[in-house]
């Protein structure tokens, strides 16, 4: 069995995370309930002819992955794996609306072609002329984690030496408003805005000094709060980790009624620095890929921006980080990171 290390982490998000060397030095405050990503100049990454056809998610995914490969100094990965909860919802809405508006007449194929969930992974492969393993996971709040689990399995089982993996979701223009309407009608609905973004990573079996190891990842489809605690304890003991070894516990807290899962899980780590991020990134099915991004930056820079701190104080070097995410009380995931 090989070990799995993170060689690069790149995020296009609703914060200044892409075209900056600093790590959340200036927080962008958002006052709306729906926040768009801060988009870079995509012309630096994508040819104008391709760019014209691409929807937001594809642009974000292609640009983020391109930079992740560049930082890792990797021209061609040995696997390309993405996760997306809503897929290419912009083009889906576009095609659906032209079906409705034109009563199934005079349709053109472009938006249909680009509406399939695997468009981002496909466009990355096409751009790189890369013929390796290519897969896309579309499982709600576990879309990114499923992709990461597959990537991790590729590395540890030596099916690939390096893998490009990422999570991407775009807001879209119409369906999101229906989702927001339902959320507003719910008691204890989200307190953070809806967002979008793309976070991509290069994983490798090659180790270098101070690099970050993905020690383990686990996903659980459904669990009661008590069951979840048992699973979390089991996850830690299987990895020979005591609660006190965790230097930072990063949760996907979003202010809704299901935050009680995080509260309960946090009781296992009463002395641990408790971090959150969805108030910065917004909530979306693959927001946890932003969570992994910020965790890698904390480990790399050994600093914790104030805005991330939910509870506790940053006092000591951070070596081990545990991430826990869930969505609406299901689709739980644990990711365990360790700085070497």
């Amino acid at each position, binding site marked *: 069995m090989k070990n799995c290390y993170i060689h690069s982490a790149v995020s296009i998000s609703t914060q200044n995370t892409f075209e900056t060397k600093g790590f959340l030095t200036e927080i962008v405050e958002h006052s709306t309930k729906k926040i768009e990503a801060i988009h870079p100049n995509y012309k630096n990454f994508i040819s104008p002819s391709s760019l014209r056809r691409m929807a937001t998610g594809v642009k974000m995914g292609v640009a983020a992955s391109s930079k992740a490969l560049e930082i890792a100094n990797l021209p061609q990965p040995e696997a390309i794996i993405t996760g997306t909860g809503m897929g290419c919802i912009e083009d889906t809405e576009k095609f*659906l609306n032209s079906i409705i508006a034109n009563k199934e007449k005079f349709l053109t194929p472009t938006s*249909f072609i680009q509406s399939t969930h695997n468009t981002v992974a496909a466009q990355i492969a096409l751009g790189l002329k890369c013929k390796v393993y290519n897969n896309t996971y579309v499982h709600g709040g576990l879309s990114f984690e499923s992709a990461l689990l597959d990537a991790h399995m590729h590395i540890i089982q030596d099916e690939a030496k390096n893998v490009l993996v990422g999570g991407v979701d775009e807001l879209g223009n119409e369906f999101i408003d229906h989702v927001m309407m339902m959320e507003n009608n719910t008691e204890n609905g989200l307190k953070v805005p809806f967002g979008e973004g793309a976070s991509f990573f290069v994983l490798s079996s090659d180790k270098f000094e101070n690099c970050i190891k993905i020690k383990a990842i686990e996903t659980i489809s459904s669990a009661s709060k008590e069951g979840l605690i048992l699973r979390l304890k089991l996850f830690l003991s299987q990895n020979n980790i005591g609660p006190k070894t965790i230097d930072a516990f990063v949760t996907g807290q979003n202010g809704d009624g299901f935050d009680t899962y995080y509260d309960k899980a946090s009781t296992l780590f009463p002395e641990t620095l408790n971090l959150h991020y969805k108030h910065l990134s917004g909530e979306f099915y693959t927001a946890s890929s932003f969570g992994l991004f910020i965790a890698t930056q904390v480990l790399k820079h050994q600093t914790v921006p104030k805005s991330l701190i939910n509870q506790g104080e940053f006092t000591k070097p951070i070596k081990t980080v545990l991430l826990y995410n869930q969505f609406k009380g299901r689709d739980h995931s644990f990711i365990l990171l360790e700085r070497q």
Partner: protein
Amino acid sequence: MPNTELNKIKTPRVAITGMGIISAIGNSVESNKKALFASENGIGNITLINTIHLDAIKVGEVKLSNEALISALQLSENNNFSRTALLGLFAAKAAVKNSGIKDISAYKTGLISATTVGGMDKTELYLKQFESNPKIQKYIASHHAGDSTQKIADALGIIDFVTTISTACSSATNAIMLGARFIKSGKLDRVIVGGTDALSKFTINGFKTLMIQSEELCKPFDANRNGLNLGEAAAYLVLESEQIAIKENKPILAYVSGYANANDAFHQTASSHNGEGAFLAMDKALQNASLLPRDINYINAHGTATPNNDLSESVAIKRIFEDKVPDFSSTKAFTGHTLAAAGAVEAVFSVLALQEQVVFPNINFETEIPETGLKPVTELKRNQIQNVLSNSFGFGGNCSTLILSKA
């Protein structure tokens, strides 16, 4: 490397111990088998979707309405199942039953399902009513592609690893491949794998704009093929580590002995002229199975009957098998192209081919494609079949191949 006894000992074999299917040619494995043996296709005019293309296309519809499926599954009246979820649960339940599983939690069990349309059948009906009609707002939550999988997992009591794959028309093959990798790695003891896709106005119109939908019965691998028939289906297989199947004294239907995934990296929707992605998928799958091309006795081809796919796939097949192309056929003229479910539907048919020692016919074929001169099997053919190779290719260049072997 030949498939020696030594190799078999090294990694646990992946046993198929159950399967379930609902397609245009039947609501059970038995009825699908019967139709395949009788060369009876399930293609006809569309009845369940209100579309202007009614007379311009032929499709492979599942013959049960949503109401009939809801009643068969004993769902409550206020359920928010999309048709994709209904078909999926129907077939997944049948697979679990067929595998003789009494207690799903007795072993570490996962679910990997594939879909492309997800809850689109409801979204396309209600998009403009979501805001104003409280009655149908329940379908907002069932739009995303993971929803049908979550519903199947919850109904079957699967709480551990559950995920959904969407790589267009190769989706279910990738689900089977991931499941096999999980069994081999020891991460799961048992995993239910497959896919489900309902017909929708969205896909019908999408394929219509690409002008690759036939007005007639589709003719895979025929020189005069003029496009595909869309279909809907769900199919699932139960994969178990061989040791557990033996320990539980279960009948093993077949083995998953090889798999591979590659990308054509040529065009978002079209396949390359030399079938590079397909060639790589088949080549890597043979290596993964430690088999040689001559060990394959039957190819269940992707064979959509589009001009582009069938030529590209034929070229790739010739590159792998050279002048010794084994018996091959596409079964899509029976079921239609069932998109994300196709790989699982055809895996079920491949298992049937292994169990019954037959090659299913490529119906509607008349004339060989002049460029390749390949002639599929056109009548039910009895033969000794040890290994079946099954292809699934999709938009985005996603190409995947499975190799299934006789138990």
